[in-house]
C-alpha cells in the first residue's frame, strides 16, 4: 500500500526507494536472527492504524464536558481519569489534562522531536514532527495558530507546553456554544484532533453531516 509521500518532504524524491530497501534489510536481519516475530510488527501497525487514535481523546473530552466528577478527576489526576475510560500505557503513563478557558489557551509541542500522547491521540501528524512547528510553536505561537486558521483575542494568554519529559499533555478544548443537551457521543463527534493539541478551536459547525 505505497502512498504518495507527503508534500512536506520535498527534496527526498529518491529517499522512498532507498528507505524501503534499508528497512527491508533490517527487518530481514532481525527476523532471521530470531529477535522479532513478524506477527509482532503486524500487531503494532494494526494497533496504531486502527485502534489507538484521536477518537480516544475525543471520548475523554466529551466525558469531561458532561460529567463534572470526571472533569474534576481529569484535572486532578489525568492518568487515572483516562485509565477509567480504558486508555493509558505507551505514551500515556503520565498524563496532564490542560483546560482551555476564555482567558487561557493551551498548545502542545515537542521541540526536541515528537513526544505526543499516543494513548489518547494515536501517532502524531507530520506537521507536529516538522521543523517549522517545532521551531516556531514556542517563539511565535500566534503566528503558528494563524496558519491553522485560528485567531485568538489579543489578550488571551497562550501557554505553550514543550514535552521534554515522559509527561504527556491533552488539551481539553472549550465546549462550543449551541451544544446544550447533546449526548456524549454526539459531542465526541465534534472534537477534532487539532483542538486536543491546541492548534484548533471548536465550533458547532464542524459537526459532520448527520
Amino acid at each position, binding site marked *: 500500500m505505497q*502512498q504518495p*509521500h*507527503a*508534500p*512536506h*518532504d520535498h527534496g527526498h524524491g529518491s*529517499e*522512498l526507494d532507498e*528507505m*524501503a*530497501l*534499508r*528497512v*527491508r534489510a*533490517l*527487518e530481514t*536481519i*532481525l527476523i*532471521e*536472527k*530470531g529477535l522479532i*516475530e513478524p*506477527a*509482532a*510488527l*503486524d*500487531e*503494532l501497525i494494526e494497533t*496504531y*492504524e486502527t485502534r489507538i487514535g484521536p477518537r480516544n481523546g475525543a471520548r475523554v473530552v466529551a466525558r469531561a464536558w458532561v460529567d463534572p466528577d470526571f472533569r474534576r478527576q481529569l484535572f486532578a489526576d489525568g492518568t487515572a481519569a483516562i485509565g477509567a475510560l480504558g486508555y493509558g*500505557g*505507551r*505514551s500515556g503513563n*503520565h498524563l496532564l489534562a490542560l483546560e482551555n478557558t476564555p482567558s487561557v489557551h493551551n498548545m502542545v509541542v515537542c521541540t*526536541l*522531536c515528537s513526544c505526543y500522547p499516543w494513548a489518547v491521540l*494515536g*501517532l502524531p*501528524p*507530520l*506537521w507536529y514532527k*516538522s521543523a*517549522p512547528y*517545532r*521551531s*516556531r510553536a*514556542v*517563539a511565535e505561537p*500566534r503566528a503558528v495558530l494563524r*496558519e491553522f486558521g485560528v485567531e485568538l483575542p489579543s489578550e488571551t*494568554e*497562550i*501557554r*505553550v*507546553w*514543550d514535552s*521534554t*519529559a*515522559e*509527561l504527556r499533555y491533552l488539551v481539553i478544548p472549550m465546549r462550543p456554544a449551541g451544544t446544550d443537551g447533546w449526548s456524549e457521543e454526539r459531542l465526541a463527534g465534534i472534537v477534532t484532533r487539532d483542538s486536543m493539541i491546541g492548534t484548533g478551536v471548536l465550533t458547532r459547525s464542524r459537526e459532520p453531516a448527520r
Partner: protein
Amino acid sequence: MNGAADMGGMHGFGPVEPEPNEPVFHAAWEKKAFALNMAIGVAGIWNLDAFRFARESLPPPQYLNTSYYGLWVVTLENMMLKHGVATSEEIAAGHALAPDAAAPRPVTAAMVADMVRCGSPYDRPAPAPAKFKVGDTVRARNMHPKTHTRLPRYVRGHVGEVVRIVGCHVFPDSNATDGREDPHWLYTVRFDGRELWGADSDPTVRVSVEAWEPYLEPA
C-alpha cells in the same frame, strides 16, 4: 547535546503545513520502520533515551535532510551496529550471515500488545526530598553537555517559575549514556515569553518545559 534536534526558536524553516486527511503512515516502509523500532525496544537491548540520543547525534546536515521515519531507520541501523545485533556486511547483504548466539526469545505479538497496554512508567521512588516547591523562582542552568539532555537550548540561562512538581522520574541524561536511571525530581517550569525571546515578543505567551532538578538552580 547541541544537535539539530533541538529546534526551539530557530528561524527559516517556513510555514507549518497541515495536511488534510493525513494518513497515519505515508508509505509502507514507514509502517515497518515504526514497528521494527517499537518491537526491538521490547527486547531491551537499548533504552528509549539511548535511542533518542543516537537519533539526535546524527550530523546536523543529515538530520535536517532526512524524513521523520527515515531518522528512525538510520538510527535503528546505527544501534544494531553499535550493539552487535548486525554487522555492516549483514546490512549490506540484507540478510543475517550468522545466527545471533546471544538472542533472547523473540519479541512476539503478545509481548508488544503488553508493551502498548502497559507502557513504561518513568516515575520512581524519591531518593531525597524535592529541593524546589511550586512558586519558586528558578534559573535553567547554562549547561552544554555533549551527551544527552532534555533541557532545550532556548531556556538555558533563563529564569522561570516552578508551577508543578511532576514527580521523581528517570533521568534521561544518565539513562541514555550508561543505563543508570538515577531518578531526580521533575518540575514544570514556566517562562515568560519576553524572558525567552526579548522585549519585542508577544507579552501573552508563556512557555513551559519539564525540567529535572539537576537542570535548575535557585534564582
